[in-house]
C-alpha cells in the first residue's frame, strides 16, 4: 500500500467516526503478519502462490495465506464442514499436494491453467479455501479503502439510507 493510502486509512480509523472496539480490530488487522506454523515451507509457498491467483493481492501488504495458517493454528473454524470432507487443515494439505509439481514457480497463466483440475478433484476444499481467502481479503482495511467502503465508520448515526444519500465521510473515503 502506498504511504498516502496508509495515511488515509489511519486517519479514518483514528477518527471519532470509529468506535473503540472497531478501531482495535481493524488496526490489528492492518498490520497483521503471520508467516507459517501449520504448513511446512513447501506447502506454505504453494498456498501463497495459489492465494494470489484465487484472490489477486500483494502478499506484502496483506498476508492472506498467513491468515489461513494462523486460523488453523488457533483452531477456530466457522462452525461446520461438509460431512464427507476431511478437517480443514488436512483438506487444504491434500488440495495443495494435488497441485502440479513446482506450481509455485510457474508463471501466472500456467498456474491459472492448473487450478480447474484441483477444483474438480477437491471441490469442498477448494470452495472452503476460496471463501476463507475472500473473507480475509474483504475484511482487510486496505481492500475496504480501495473499494470505498466506509461502513465501519459508524460511531455517529447514518441519518440517510436511501440511494446516493452519502455522508461526507463516505464520499471522502477511497481513491478519488
Amino acid at each position: 500500500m502506498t504511504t498516502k493510502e496508509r495515511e488515509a486509512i489511519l486517519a479514518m480509523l483514528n477518527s471519532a467516526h470509529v468506535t473503540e472496539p472497531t478501531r482495535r480490530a481493524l488496526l490489528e488487522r492492518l498490520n497483521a503478519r503471520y508467516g507459517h506454523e501449520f504448513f511446512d515451507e513447501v506447502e506454505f509457498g504453494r498456498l501463497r502462490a495459489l492465494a494470489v491467483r484465487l484472490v489477486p493481492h500483494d502478499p506484502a501488504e496483506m498476508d492472506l495465506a498467513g491468515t489461513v495458517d494462523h486460523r488453523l493454528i488457533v483452531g477456530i473454524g466457522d462452525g461446520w464442514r461438509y460431512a464427507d470432507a476431511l478437517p480443514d487443515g488436512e483438506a487444504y494439505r491434500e488440495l495443495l499436494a494435488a497441485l502440479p509439481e513446482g506450481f509455485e514457480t510457474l508463471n501466472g497463466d500456467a498456474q491459472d491453467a492448473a487450478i480447474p483440475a484441483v477444483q474438480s478433484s477437491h471441490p469442498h476444499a477448494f470452495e472452503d479455501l476460496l471463501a476463507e481467502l475472500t473473507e480475509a481479503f474483504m475484511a482487510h482495511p486496505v481492500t475496504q479503502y480501495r473499494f470505498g467502503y466506509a461502513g465501519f465508520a459508524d460511531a455517529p448515526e447514518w441519518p440517510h439510507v436511501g440511494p446516493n444519500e452519502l455522508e461526507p465521510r463516505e464520499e471522502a473515503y477511497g481513491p478519488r
Partner: protein
Amino acid sequence: MAPANALPTDLDVLVIGTGAGGAPLLARLAQAGLKVAALEAGVRHPPEGIATDEVAQLGLFWTDERLSAGNDPVGFGRNNSGRGVGGSTLHYTAYTPRAQPDDLKLRTEFGQGEDWPLEFSELEPYYDELEYFLGVSGPENYPWGPQRKSSYRHPPLPLNGAARLMQKACAEIGMKTSPAANAALSRPQEQEGYGTRHTCTNRGFCQAGCSIGAKASMDVTFLALAESLGAQIVDGAQVTALTMKDGRVTGAEFMRGQELEHLSAKTVILAAGAVETPRLLLMNGLANSSGQVGRNFMAHVGMQVWGQVDDDLRPYKGIPGGLISEDTHRVPGLIGGYLLQSLGVMPVTYATQYARGTLKWGPELVQHLRGYNHVAGINVLGECLPYEHNYLELSDELDGRGLPKPRIHFSFGENEKKMNAHAEALMRDLWGRIGARDVWALPRAAHTLGTARMGADPETSVVNPFGRTHDIENLWICDNSTFTSSLSVNPALTQMALSLRTADALVEGLKQA
C-alpha cells in the same frame, strides 16, 4: 456473602440456553416468584463492546464444528447459530413477522406436512404482548394475516436502497409490499430491568450484533428483566450431561473453564436450540421413547438473488430486512408458501457468499467485489416440510471436550425445489425490472428447526403441546427444536411466544400441584 460466581442452590427451575427460547420464560418464571437460573455456553457481549466488523464478531456464533451431510448441506455458524448471553438473538436480523393461522394447519390444508397441536388464537395474545415489550417498529396497518388488535408500538424504520428498489419493482408487477416489522427501535424506549434503549442509528450490522441496544436481543430485554427479578445467569457454562434419578431429571453437569460443575433443580428446561438440544438428549439417551429425537430437521428455503445497480446504495446502512411482501404466502402448486424481503448486507458476508455461491476466482472475483457499494439483494423465506431423510445424529468424531460432533443430514424435497425455482424466477424478474446487472442467485437454507417436535401423541412427538417431554415429567424443551412445521416466516417471534406460553403452563401446573 457468597462470591459473585457462586452457583445458585435450591433452584425451582434450571434453564439451559438464553436465546429466544430460554430468555422469555426465565423472566416470566422469575416474575412468578420462582427461584430460577440459566446456564449459557457463551459469554456476555455488552453492546458497547460490539465492533462494526464481521470477523471481530465471530464470537457471537456457535463455532464448534458440526458435520453437514445430504444433498443440500446446511451451513451453520454465521448462518444460524448463536453463542452468548442472548443466544441467536444477538445476531438475528430482528425480523419479526407473525405466523399466519394457516401456517399451523398444513396437513389440514394440503394433506402433507404437519398440523401444530395448538391454534393461532393461543399465540395471538403473546404476539401482542411481545411486540409491545420488545418495541417492534412496523407499519400502521400490516396488510397480511388477521386484523391486528393494535398497531406496532413504533413507526417503521427508514427504507434503505435495496428496500426502495424492491418496492419499485414489486409495484410494477402489482405485488403488494410493506415496511417490515423489525424488533429494532425507531424511537427510544424504556426497558424494564435495563434502562433506556436508544433509537436505531441505521447501522446495518444487526447480524454482527447491535452496538447500541436498539435491537431487541434477549440480553437487553428479557434477560435484563429476569436478572432484575433475581434470576441468575451462569455464562461460559457448556452443558455436557443431564443428571437423572428415579426417572426424573435432577440437574445438569457443565464445563466452566476447565472445571466440571453441577447445578440441581426441581425442573429443567432445555433451550439450547435444534442442534444442541437433540445432541444432548441423544448423548444421554433421554426423552426418546418415540425415536423422534433428532428427526424432522427443517431449514427454511432461503433463496437470495443479488444484483448491482448504478446508484450508490451502501448496503451496510439501514435495517437489512426493511421491506416485506407476503403476497406469495400461498402459491398454486406449492405446499405452504414464502415471503419476500429486501436485503442489505455486510461486506464480508456478501463476499464469502459470492465466492461460495459462484466459485468465481481471480480478477473476475475482485472486480465483482469492487462493486459492493452498488449491491442490492432480495430473498425469500419459505416453508420446509419435515422429512424422514432430514435428521441429526451423533457422529464418531469427537469435539474438544470429547463429546460426539453432531451430523446433520439435509436435502430439499420436491416442494422445496419447486419453491426455490418459483422464487428464483420471481426475484430475477424483479431485479431485471430495476436494471440490475451481474445478477446471481444463491440457493440456501436458513434457521435450524425441528428435531424434538411437539405433538399430542407420544408415539410421534417428543414434547407435549406445552413443551413438557412425554417421557420425563420434569424435563421440558423450549426452543426451535419443538417446531412441528417450519412456518413460512422467521421463527424468533413465534419462538418467544411459545416460550411465554410454556412458562404460563409451568406456573399454572405448579399452582395446581
